[in-house]
């Protein structure tokens, strides 16, 4: 493949992570505690200083220029070290869109601000009536002089409560066929008429929001590419920039954590890990993960040789999220009765409450419930299956 010395790279990554991560961040990730905005910003700044923030950007824009293998190594090591994940909306989504379809002014203005953390992006695609059928979206933008006037509602907007910019798909031509009247618009969330309302999820957290637009005036310079071509740009993102989609790093680290829990938990006087039934379940998911990691590398190699990834990203999304959910499921089972207490609150910052049960049990159920989202967002499993059956199998 390339001339990169991957062993040396891995060593360098490990050394960096060992030094750079604060105890606070590591501990929060290990225990599954909620991350504050400041926590995210802390890690974002550390990575930016090191030049390792934009793992999938080319060097000319301030990215690492890493190849697929390096990215995979970094992802695995970062997860193992309990590093926080980097919020994807600016770096993994907005960045590539700007680099591919943005004009020079947009690139010069927005890209550095993603890196330095001045702009926190969120993704305004989904609407109450437009989920899987995203192209039926209704939020409209009407041209008025050198502005668009935006009205409508987005929903499920992850971390919009922290964001100051949102990239939106909006309808600019109500008469065109549904995919053809959509534009890609960047909206400053401090503009009058933007309102963010939290949605509480079943794990008790409020990571998603509704975002409302009431006569929001957006300068036309904030349009990406051509008017009514937004669908093409959104689709590009779906098929080309899914670097982390398989979640190999998460699964790998979570499986290791699960095995450690299964050693500590006792069943009939033996470690749970020695129970043949539980051991078999853990082994099966490990076998699946090993194969998927290679599928992931095969896809990376294919992309490196210039081929488009195509449906592999759908495949990796389906299998990768299944594996992550299976590991979460085994983890909550492993902790037994201690899956029941609402114990994360007791460990959270500022609460001096005593811990309930072993610390590794505190987030097991919450994580399991929260990660039901993995097979719903970013194109549900059902939608991915439809893509594969149509475009690969020709059914």
């Amino acid at each position, binding site marked *: 493949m390339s001339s990169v010395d991957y062993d040396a790279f891995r060593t360098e990554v490990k050394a960096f992570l060992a030094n750079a991560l604060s105890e606070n961040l590591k501990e929060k990730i290990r225990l599954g505690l909620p991350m504050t905005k400041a926590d995210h910003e802390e890690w974002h700044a550390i990575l930016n200083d090191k030049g390792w923030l934009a793992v999938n950007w080319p060097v000319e824009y301030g990215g690492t220029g890493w190849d697929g293998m390096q990215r995979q190594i970094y992802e695995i090591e970062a997860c193992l070290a309990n590093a926080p994940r980097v919020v994807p909306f600016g770096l993994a989504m907005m960045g590539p869109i700007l680099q591919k379809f943005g004009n020079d002014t947009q690139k010069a203005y927005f890209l550095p601000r993603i890196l330095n953390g001045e702009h926190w992006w969120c993704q305004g695609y989904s609407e109450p009536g437009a989920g899987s059928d995203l192209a039926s979206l209704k939020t409209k933008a009407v041209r008025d002089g050198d502005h668009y006037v935006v009205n409508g509602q987005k929903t499920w907007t992850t971390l919009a409560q922290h964001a100051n910019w949102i990239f939106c798909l909006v309808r600019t031509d109500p008469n065109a066929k549904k995919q053809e009247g959509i534009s890609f618009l960047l909206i400053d969330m401090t503009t009058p008429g933007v309102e963010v309302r939290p949605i509480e999820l*079943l794990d008790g957290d409020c990571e998603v929001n509704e975002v409302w637009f009431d006569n929001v005036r957006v300068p036309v310079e904030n349009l990406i590419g051509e008017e009514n071509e937004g669908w093409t740009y959104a689709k590009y993102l779906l098929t080309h920039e899914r670097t982390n989609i398989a979640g190999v790093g998460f699964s790998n680290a979570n499986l290791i954590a699960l095995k450690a829990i299964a050693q500590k938990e006792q069943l009939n006087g033996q470690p749970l890990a020695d129970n043949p039934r*539980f051991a078999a379940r853990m082994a099966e998911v490990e076998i699946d993960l090993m194969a998927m990691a290679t599928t992931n590398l095969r896809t990376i190699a294919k992309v490196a040789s210039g081929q488009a990834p195509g449906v592999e990203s759908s495949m990796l999304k389906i299998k990768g999220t299944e594996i992550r959910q299976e590991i979460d499921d085994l983890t909550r089972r492993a902790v*037994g009765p201690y899956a029941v*207490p609402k*114990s994360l609150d007791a460990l959270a910052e500022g609460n001096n409450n005593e811990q*309930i049960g072993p610390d590794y049990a505190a987030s097991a159920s919450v994580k399991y419930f929260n990660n*039901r989202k993995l097979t719903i967002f970013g194109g*549900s499993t059902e939608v991915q299956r439809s893509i594969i059956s149509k475009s690969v199998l020709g059914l």
Partner: protein
Amino acid sequence: MQFGDTEDRRMLSDMLRRFLAENYANDMRSKLAETQSGFSAEIWAGLAELGIIGALFSEEVGGFGGAGFDISTVFEELGRAGTVEPLLDTLYAGGLIADLGDEAQKELLAPVIAGEKQIAFAHGEPGSRYDLSHVETHAAQTAAGFTLTGAKSVVGNGAAADTIVVSARTSGEVRDANGISLFVVPVNAKGLSRKPYAKLDGGNAAEIALDGVEVPSSALLGPLGCAFDAIEFRAASAITAICAEALGAMEQAKDLTVEYLKTRQQFGRPIGKFQALQHRMVEILIDVEQARSAVINAADHLEGDRLTRERMVSAAKNLIGRTGRRISEECVQMHGGIGMTEEYALSHFARRLILIDHVLGDADHHLERFIALGKSA
């Protein structure tokens, strides 16, 4: 076969369903989550008044029922409405008092059945997982009675209880069935401390520390060192109850999902028109019917011989554990994002169905138990 379906029980379930439909709103659970007990005092009083608590106990101790099918009838409705009130703990602890108590101890049940007092059974321990015979807490005999020392974990209703039935070892090794005794302990006993908390699926529990708690001889519930059979029997009735509750929750999750598939439009049609979802909805229906039969099997054999009863009960808990997970996950998935929101009722049922697997033994525990019991059959 009757499958337990008598005129009286149908009236009981109709009455309870109506009461809960009228009084149990979805937003109530999130409000209750903020309170110390995690449940509604008004609903509790209402349930007592309707005779629902009494339906869990025999006439001998002041109740109106207490048979397997009485229990399953009540709990199916509780599950359907998504209640968080501590009837399971009342049944478990109250059942032990009813089965083993002397006259004075049995008197404790009258205020419980009337809804005036709360009880709990403190049996599980930090290391016991789902093993009913794992008791490390010990009771040392003294001149005046006993001294209890140990730790109890995830005690359902432990935060709200006035009186707690505590298991402690008076002889034998940690996982021996022999040598376990029960004690009736008021929560204000010296040396008893509680760490109360909310459960993820509603209601309360507590970690309980027993630091040399001195109780009189009259606190001993049942014969010394021989409580295991009674615990196993009452665990069986509690498992039957929680399986019936899961059945009600499954029914509700299924109904909500069918309704949603009929109304949610994507790609210009109701999503229920997609065969990829239709067949899975059918699987859920089959799962629910299987669960119903498993509950009937357990309820029907609750009063039977030990081996058959325990096999039926473990079979039910295993089947409910497996299908509960599938139904919970599938119903959320087929809803999409909305299924994950706290505001929409499904999220409660999805959570409850999963966490029921963590109470009184999970699917794997009961699978292994079922196999072991089969060998001695």
